């Protein structure tokens, strides 16, 4: 499984499409996966916006994740569930795409993307425009075979420092990973959403220390990706409490390579839903 348009592509079929404006698509999360983190749900939604914007400019450019004002994570998506993805593109041209997005399962919203902005980069540096155009036509037609995604694998992350207020860890981006086939064929880039997923795990370890009051990530906001992270690079993630509220802790995340700041975001927590006995 995996492979091109399977390793890190989260769209089985585009069911509604208004050029340059909006789209709706489905993606069946393979039941064989151990988990499907909310960051990948956000990735799936962002990828749909990318398809709409690339199609609008004849696939000569591709957007990359840069800014997201708010990603609200209402509930986890479980393996075996089918996502419905929706995007409203407010603006797209050769410079950038600006959009809103939602992902829901059986009518229940799981993830919402608010005010996302991705600058367009020259397609030929990253991928084949013709190949993408053919895949887009397939997605808008009969759709692609579901069940191709088989996970992103484990990433080595070692704790560097930890106290009650902050934690830092070194994340090693593999030189070779299956998702680089899709992200991107001509110039592999570590996906921003995978970076955020690791930041969330680190932030959760910082915040969720009280067994009596478990917390879950409720939002990631003011996300800013400043530069690309390449295969083989070591990224130092640091998370620091900025609002240690009883119910709504907030953590600031910074990702650095050496002295270079690669990404920043804030991660918000809410009380975890307690299952009824």
């Amino acid at each position, binding site marked *: 499984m995996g492979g091109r348009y399977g390793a890190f592509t989260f769209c089985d079929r585009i069911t509604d499409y208004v050029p340059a404006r909006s789209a709706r698509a489905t993606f069946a999360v393979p039941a064989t996966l151990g988990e499907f983190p909310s960051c990948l749900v956000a990735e799936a939604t962002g990828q749909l916006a990318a398809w709409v914007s690339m199609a609008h400019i004849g696939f000569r450019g591709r957007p990359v994740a*840069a*800014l997201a004002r708010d990603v609200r994570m209402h509930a986890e998506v479980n393996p075996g569930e089918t996502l419905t993805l929706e995007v409203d593109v407010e603006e797209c041209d050769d*410079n950038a795409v*600006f959009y809103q997005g939602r992902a829901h399962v059986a009518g229940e919203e799981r993830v919402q993307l608010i*005010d996302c*902005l991705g*600058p367009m980069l020259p397609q030929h540096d990253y991928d084949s425009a013709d190949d993408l155009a053919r895949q887009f036509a397939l997605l808008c037609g009969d759709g692609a075979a579901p069940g191709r995604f088989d996970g992103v694998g484990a990433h080595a992350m070692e704790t560097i420092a930890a106290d009650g207020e902050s934690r830092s860890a070194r994340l090693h981006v593999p030189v070779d990973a299956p998702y680089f086939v899709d992200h991107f064929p001509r110039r592999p880039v570590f996906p921003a959403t995978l970076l955020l997923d690791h930041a969330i795990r680190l932030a959760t370890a910082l915040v969720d220390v009280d067994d009596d009051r478990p917390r879950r990530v409720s939002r990631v906001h*003011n996300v800013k990706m400043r530069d690309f992270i390449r295969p083989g690079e070591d990224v130092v993630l640091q998370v620091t409490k900025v609002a240690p509220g009883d119910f709504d802790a907030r953590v600031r995340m910074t990702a650095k390579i050496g002295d270079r700041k690669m990404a920043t975001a*804030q991660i918000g927590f809410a009380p975890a839903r307690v299952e009824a006995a």
Partner: protein
Amino acid sequence: MRGLNEMEFTRQQIDAVFPKVADVIADALGCDIEDVKLDSSLIEDLDAESIDFLDLVFRLERAFKVKIPRGKIVEDARGDLAEADFEQKGVVTDAGLQRLREFLSEVPPERIKTPLKAADIPRLFTPETFCKVVLRAQKNAPAAAA
């Protein structure tokens, strides 16, 4: 065309929009609003990057309910000066510098160093630059709607 020393907007006009512009900038850049001064360099003092300018434009459009042309600050600064007269081999010419000093009158002259690469012009932008962007959009709105 505006004269070289003619003020495009009054201090009162700029002060009227500044609080909301500062609020938008603080929110977009994740900084404290107290750090957003009219003459702060957005890049050097507030850690902004070029992508933030595009984000700011979107946010300001919503906050002020105006339409702001994309990537027009440098183009507007150039005015009726031909591109070749404004910059040569990526460096702003003397005539271009004169236009910049006029157009970005809020930028302290000592900050406009020579030689100035055209790519570094955004380093000069301040919150007041964006106050003026908003005011221009508001000024142009009735004409656009007519």
